């Protein structure tokens, strides 16, 4: 009887230990699914009231994986001559999974500044970061990039 109980305890403990080891296994969050991407874009379209055209004229460079959400590096650049006739007016950056979605907005001046800037932002969770560029002709360009942060930078 004692032996049986011993075996059952060991087994149960064994099962529990095996179970928790399974739970503790590290799960790398894979790059966002198409659904996550669509949701992010839809949210920004609602926020800005604009239909957004994905464009490779606008580039958002961020690390795909980063150990902290407190200070994630970000560079954005828009191709173009920055003349009176063809320039970026402003670029807004959004993080849809952050408690407060709008992150930062940059205003550029034709002939005086280049449409390129680097900074550091906070991210609360792995997500698509979305940039929207407003051009002088009224076009709204958009790009997004997936960033997997290991910690919540907004807490």
């Amino acid at each position, binding site marked *: 009887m004692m032996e049986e109980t011993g075996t059952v305890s060991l087994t149960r403990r064994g099962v529990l230990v095996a179970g928790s080891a399974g739970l503790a296994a590290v799960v790398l969050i894979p790059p966002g699914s198409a659904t996550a991407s669509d949701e992010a874009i839809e949210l920004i379209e609602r926020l800005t009231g604009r239909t957004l055209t994905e464009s490779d004229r606008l580039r958002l460079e961020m690390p795909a994986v980063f150990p902290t959400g*407190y*200070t*994630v590096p970000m560079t954005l650049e828009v191709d173009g001559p920055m003349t009176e006739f063809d320039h970026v007016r402003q670029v807004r950056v959004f*993080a849809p999974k*952050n*408690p*407060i979605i*709008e*992150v*930062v*907005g*940059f*205003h*550029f*001046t034709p*002939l*005086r*500044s*280049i449409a*390129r*800037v*680097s*900074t*550091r*932002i*906070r*991210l609360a969770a792995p997500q698509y970061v979305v940039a929207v560029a407003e051009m002088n002709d009224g076009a709204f360009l958009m790009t997004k990039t997936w960033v997997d942060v290991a910690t919540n*930078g*907004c*807490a």
Partner: protein
Amino acid sequence: MATPQPRVQVPDTVAMGEVFQVKSLISHRMETGLRRDDKGDVIPRKIINKFVCRYNDAEVFSVDLHEAVAANPYFEFYLRATERGRLEFVWEEDGGAVYSLVHQLNVS
């Protein structure tokens, strides 16, 4: 709370028409208003909410900062040297405090 310290890095001289890089930094906690203290009360938001760069009094670059800009806001941006003159950098904080720096630009 320590007074925010602004710093700027601009090249010593630039050639006329050349694009040059500016780095700006201000030490600031950027309190988001989302954190709670030990008693459980919300720590109120206090951030730098605007950064402006003026070149001989004309605004050439500016930033609207929200809560998700990281602490010690840092910007690296690029201007075109159009004339000799004064670069002025201004940071505005929630509550109205303003921090600024001036830099004389040598254009060859």
